[in-house]
């Protein structure tokens, strides 16, 4: 479905994406990365809105920059808002479908079906200026799916949605993916993507750090040290226990001597032995803080792996 070969995109001297090599079969994928990581640049390349400085981009075997007819097969829900205050969702979505070359009647039918799917039927004839952010988000999704694309690309679709809106959006996207349709979902919040798909591409600093399922990424991370922080007045004594152990990659103690940061190759080993050391040495440890699986921590670990810092 998507093939990127050595794709780099420069904005003057700034690198948007750097030497990306990706080959994805049809399916649902999450594109994860912090703000400014290159997600939107990648989406712009996939949708033919940007031309790669180096390398080649193929979507369904075609170059989206040169072969604009293939845009009919892609539905894009950008992060940017829609600001046509005196146009209704029905008129706007119909207009968008019409621009793909569908007849007027078919455009109207497709627009109404898509708006029904995102639960906007009741409000689709109201001017968009009167919509809440959630309603505008749903309308944006409707324009992206109305022409029945083979690939749906969503850029931060949860932006501005309240919890109910997020839940409804998740339900809709899960259903969409379960129908066997292809989906590329960009977000900087990992758990939003996890609710919809287990396949990820992790991007950071314009580089693709990892791709695959959560389990595959875990395997990549298996060799990468995980950070564990311990707080308490006896962490210095605990540090002496850890020196020289083969599953401890590094030990760092703060100036006050009450915070110990460990990089561990096998955190489970610490968790197994810690209680015993506390009991036998009479240590006072107030708090243990492990990586929470938050995106930043995962990306930091992947970055270490990418730099060859993992063993």
């Amino acid at each position, binding site marked *: 479905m998507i093939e990127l070969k050595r794709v780099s995109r420069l904005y003057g001297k700034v690198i948007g994406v750097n030497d990306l090599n990706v080959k994805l079969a049809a399916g649902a994928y999450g594109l994860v*990365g912090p*703000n*400014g*990581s*290159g*997600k*939107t*640049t990648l*989406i*712009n390349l996939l*949708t033919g*809105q*940007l*031309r790669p400085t180096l390398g080649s981009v193929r979507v369904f075997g075609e170059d989206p920059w040169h072969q*604009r*007819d293939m*845009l*009919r097969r*892609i539905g*894009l829900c*950008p*992060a*940017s*808002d*829609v*600001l*046509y205050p*005196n*146009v209704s969702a029905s*008129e706007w979505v119909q*207009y*968008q479908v*019409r*621009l*793909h*070359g569908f007849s*007027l009647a078919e455009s109207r039918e497709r627009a109404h079906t898509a708006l029904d799917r995102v639960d906007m039927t009741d409000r689709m004839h109201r001017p968009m200026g009167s919509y809440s952010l959630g309603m505008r988000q749903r309308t944006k999704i409707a*324009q992206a799916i109305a022409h029945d694309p083979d690939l749906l690309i969503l*850029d*931060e679709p949860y932006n501005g949605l309240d919890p109910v809106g997020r839940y409804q959006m998740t339900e809709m996207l899960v259903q969409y993916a379960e129908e066997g349709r292809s989906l590329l979902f*960009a977000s*900087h919040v990992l758990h939003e993507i996890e609710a919809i798909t287990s396949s990820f591409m992790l991007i950071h600093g314009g580089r693709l750090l990892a791709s695959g399922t959560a389990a595959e990424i875990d395997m990549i991370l298996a060799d990468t040290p995980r950070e564990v922080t311990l707080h308490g007045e006896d962490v210095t004594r605990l540090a002496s226990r850890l020196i020289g152990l083969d599953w401890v990659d590094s030990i760092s103690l703060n100036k006050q001597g009450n915070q110990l940061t460990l990089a561990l190759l096998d955190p489970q080993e610490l968790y197994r032995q810690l209680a015993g050391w506390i009991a036998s040495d009479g240590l006072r440890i107030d708090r243990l803080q492990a990586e929470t699986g938050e995106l930043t921590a995962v990306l930091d670990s992947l970055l270490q792996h990418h730099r060859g810092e993992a063993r």
Partner: protein
Amino acid sequence: MNGMLVFDVIRFELTRSLTVSRMMVWGALVAFPVTLVGILANRLALVEDAPKDQILGTVMFILIPEIVCLLGLLLWATPAIATEIEGQTWIYLAMRRSGRGVVAIGKYLTAVLWTLSAALAATTICVALSWPEDLVFMWLVLSGLVTLSCFAHAALYLFIGLMFRKRTMVTAVGFTLIVEFGLTFVPALANKLTVNYRLRGLFQNWLEWDTLKTPAEAVYGSEPVSTHLMALAIYTTLLLGLSLWKLRVSEFPNQQDG
């Protein structure tokens, strides 16, 4: 290019443009020449032996095809694409198979229609107020010039809007003042490249007012009607073609930070 799609773009653009502020601008564009011509016609009625038709005809020509059309198109054609880009709504259009070209032509024609309607309304009222000897002929001449002015200037402003995505209006106003109101009166080869020179030539040719031509031949030109029409057709087609080419090769990324 699918003609029906262009029609749908025009319909969509007109629908979303029917706002109070836009209608007020439309009204102002009509009222401006009507007021001036009305006052002048009143004053001239008191002067005996004044070449009333020629004075009012020339004033109407300056006010409507040369000023009203330019003002209307500055507001409509120049920001046609730029506002979509700035509002980040262009990405939705650019993602459509027929998006870029069809939307640009649709917006161009919408700008022409909107301005043309105001200019024709102004022409009709002004001609009625001035009541020339050959009323119908004067209306036909001015309406023809207004139509040509709208098509040519809209192509010019659409092109400027695409070439200068920052400070678009400033550039368009600057170009208008320097080229269409300045250079056009310079008796050299350069003035032949301006739209207003061609419109003046047609105005003089069609009305055959030698009293105006003789003292200012370089300003009105000496080419035949066919040359002026051909020049305007080439000018319009060339600028539209360049605009479509520019749209085809330009990158319009979604500018969200991600």
